[in-house]
């Protein structure tokens, strides 16, 4: 029970404690105090996460920044944390996005300000916990607890149909995660009483058990990703959620699903994963191509970006299940990049929505004439979303396509259609919203973005560019962990 580092604990508990503090500032006069405390908390949360990047050892696949304390001895559950090359970047991404979300909600949210900010801060801490937990029950605890703030965020600050969306979101995810709970208890019995994820990785399992476990975890993570055909909660949740909620959903929670595949499905059920490759790739390609086509048909901007997220996440799962380093690292890079880009896209829509209160594409046109600075960012992020080289969107997609090419030309071919579809739906939307003549009086009355909005869009644009131009530092940290995982999966668990 050595406990050498508290970095990860800090990344989890600093935002949560800040969130609880904010909760106490609920008076009407304390709104700005709540905002400043929340900003401070989120910045502090980001600051304590920095050592993860600076102190990370790229050479090892083992867990780093490990903490391990017995917690519930009855079931030998530990408060065990650690990150490897797969999870480290997401803790950083999450801490970073939280700051953006707090700034983005600064003036927009006027009702129940403290509860809003507290929900996001607490949620941020919980999601860091998901990425950092190395004990299965601890993981499950964060994974489930996360639903509570998100449920409230959608339901309280969301759009007109928010109640339906919130309940759908909650029940969909709960169904999946409870099946995972049954799987975890099963593994606890098989390993003779351990909830350590590493022990789950090592325990030998027959093919039937592996297949059942694979589907139990699949039920949980495919809903989160979301994969076709269990994606239907996402457009609803995204459309109804407030801007900040959409940002966190797209940028972080979806990644938790994909992360789960790497942490649970592949290493615990490697042989079943191999056997079900065709199944997984088919679902991924349907997401990429079919959902890509569905995206084209959307008339609501938020829905359009939501569907485009599903399509992009199809890329991620495709990359994971072609079982080579390029595919997997490409998938991970795509996750990070999508975290930046989708956040930015939703923030751009939020900027327009705050002014016009409509998400319909047809309500806009010619925005560039009244909001030139905004138009610059919108076009830039639109380009990134369609995977333009030199933006981060290109890196992941290109790597996955390369990886897929090694396995099967047609996989790569189908995946590559997204470069066309993605460009089509994104740029078409940009064209209709931004360019052309000024469509109506609402657009004529628009004011350009404030310096606050400039700040968060600018920071995200910088992140997208840096990752697009120089992706190496991002992929470097993944190498060892991805290699180790692939080797483990190739070895299998059958005797």
């Amino acid at each position, binding site marked *: 029970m050595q406990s050498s580092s508290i970095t990860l604990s800090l990344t989890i508990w600093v935002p949560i404690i800040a969130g609880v503090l904010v909760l106490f500032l609920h008076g009407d006069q304390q709104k700005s105090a709540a905002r400043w405390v929340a900003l401070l908390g989120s910045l502090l949360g980001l600051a304590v996460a920095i050592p993860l990047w600076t102190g990370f050892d790229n050479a090892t696949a083992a867990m780093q920044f490990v903490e391990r304390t017995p917690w519930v001895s009855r079931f030998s559950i530990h408060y065990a944390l650690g990150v490897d090359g797969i999870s480290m970047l997401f803790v950083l991404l999450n801490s970073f996005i939280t700051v953006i979300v707090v700034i983005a909600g600064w003036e927009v949210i006027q009702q129940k300000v403290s509860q809003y900010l507290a929900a996001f801060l607490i949620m941020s801490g919980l999601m860091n916990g998901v990425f950092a937990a190395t004990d299965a029950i601890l993981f499950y*605890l964060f994974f489930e607890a996360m*639903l509570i703030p998100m449920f409230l965020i959608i339901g309280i600050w969301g759009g007109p149909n928010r*109640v339906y969306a919130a*309940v759908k979101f909650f029940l969909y995810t709960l169904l999946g995660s409870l*099946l995972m709970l049954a799987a975890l208890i099963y593994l606890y*019995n098989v390993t003779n009483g351990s909830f350590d994820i590493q022990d789950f990785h090592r325990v030998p399992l027959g093919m039937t058990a592996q297949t059942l476990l694979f589907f139990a975890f699949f039920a949980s993570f495919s809903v989160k990703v979301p994969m076709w055909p269990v994606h239907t909660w996402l457009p609803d949740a995204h459309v109804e959620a407030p801007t900040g909620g959409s940002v966190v959903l797209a940028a972080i929670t979806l990644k938790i699903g994909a992360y789960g595949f790497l942490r649970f499905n592949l290493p615990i059920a490697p042989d079943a994963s191999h056997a079900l490759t065709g199944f997984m790739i088919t679902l991924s390609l349907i997401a990429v191509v079919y959902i890509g086509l569905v995206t084209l048909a959307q008339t609501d901007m938020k829905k359009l970006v939501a569907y485009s997220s599903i399509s992009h996440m199809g890329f991620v799962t495709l990359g994971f299940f072609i079982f080579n380093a390029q595919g997997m690292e490409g998938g991970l890079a795509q996750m990070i990049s999508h975290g930046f880009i989708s956040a930015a896209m939703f923030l751009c829509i939020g900027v327009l929505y705050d002014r016009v209160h409509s998400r319909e594409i047809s309500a806009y046109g010619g925005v560039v004439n009244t909001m030139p600075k905004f138009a610059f960012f919108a076009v830039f992020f639109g380009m990134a979303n369609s995977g333009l080289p030199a933006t981060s969107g290109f890196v992941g997609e290109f790597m996955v396509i390369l990886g897929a090419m090694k396995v099967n030309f047609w996989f790569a071919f189908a995946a590559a259609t997204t470069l066309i579809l993605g460009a089509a739906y994104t740029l078409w939307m940009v064209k209709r919203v931004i360019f052309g003549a000024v469509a109506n009086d609402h657009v004529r009355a628009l004011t350009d973005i404030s310096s606050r909005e400039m700040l968060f869009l600018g920071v995200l644009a910088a992140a997208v560019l840096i990752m697009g131009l120089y992706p190496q530092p991002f992929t470097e940290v993944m190498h060892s962990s991805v290699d180790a995982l692939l080797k483990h999966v190739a070895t299998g668990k059958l005797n």
Partner: protein
Amino acid sequence: MTVSSLNLALASPEIFLLVMTLIVMIVDLFSSPEKREGRLFFLSIFTLVLVALSLYAPLDVPRYAFNGMFVVDGMAVILKAAIVIAVAMVIIYSRAYLVARKLFSGEFILLILFATLGMMVMVSANHFVSLYLGLELFALATYAMVALNRDSAIATEAAMKYFILGALASGLLLYGLSMIYGATGSLEVAKVAKIIELSRANDPLITFGLVFVVAGLAFKLGVVPFHMWVPDVYQGAPTAMTLFIGSAPKIAAFGFIMRILADSMGGAVADWQGMLVIMAALSVALGNIIAIAQTNLKRMLAYSTISHMGFLLLGILAGTKNGYSAAMFYSIAYVLMTLTAFGMIMLLSRAGFEAENLEDFKGLNQRSPWYAFLMLIVMFSMAGIPPFLGFWAKLAVLEGALNAGYLWLVVFAVLMSVIGAFYYLRVVKLMYFDAPTDSTPIVAAAGFRGLLAVNAFGLLVLGLFPGVLMTACLNAIQRSF
């Protein structure tokens, strides 16, 4: 037989409670009306606190009193402590509610203390006769409590139903026990256990008797298909009585079932396991599904109770120490959740108004973010969402059942609890997403508010640190069986 061989000291908490109950009766008689309420309240709380303290005993080996009719072991001590604490909380929660309805009388305190005594005997009994005595002492007091509000037709109807079905259940139980007596020639738990274990496990007479015993127990616990009284009684009884019926008696019922099924008929585990499997599956399904259709919160909680008792059975039917301790943990966790939930209902109720419909919780977050948050904790805890206590209870019983090989049952129960989550979520939805229809300020005494906060945050704190209680339950079970 000498007095010393009776080991009276072991039963001192019960004896003390009985004496104090009689004193309460006298105090009630000789108090002026304006002083009565306060005196009764403080005397009863004082008594229960002393009883709880006097329960403290080393838990290493079971010790017997009254020539083996009464046992004090780890399980009994922990369950009794939980019962006494729960009853004290019931009295604190109920005071304002009952005073406003002119029901806070000597009878109420007297009945609740007698019922407590009955429950304590139930979990400590080691002989079929003492088991039955405890059960009836508890049950008769409870019937009267439900009927305490004489002018309410609904309450009277509920009391009638409760009485008739309860008496029927007792009859079934007695009938079953008489068969077991016929087959084994003994009423002593230990002797019956030994005989069944040695030779007679397959005796059809025992199996036959067991069916009646299980049916009687299922009635008392309120699991499908013997659940019909639960919704009516929960809804019909004054909320304070519902709070009582829904809380401590569940712990006592667990102890009672353990004494009969696990203690004395552990040898016939294969016979009762099958029955429990069916009842657990039905309870979990029916309780959760029908709860969705309810608009009355008390009735909804009644159906939720049915499903929770189904989960409790999952632990018992495992037939292992892990399972038993999980069920024990579940019963205590469940009672803590129920107390908070009904405490909230009573908080929102006031003189002449019963906040028992789901609608009454509308917009609570705007009226009071604090109370809404407390209710949020209870609802998510009942739904089994971590990090609240309810999650650990579910985890423990699921582990017990899975360990015993009931994978399908675990998956089934898990699916049903997703359905269950829906109606708990609906309460949260009403509180947080809807606008309030009622703007009356929420007032409560300091003691009430404090207890409610401690109660709700207890669910969170115990959810973050469940280890102590879990280990205590496991140790108690391991040393008792």
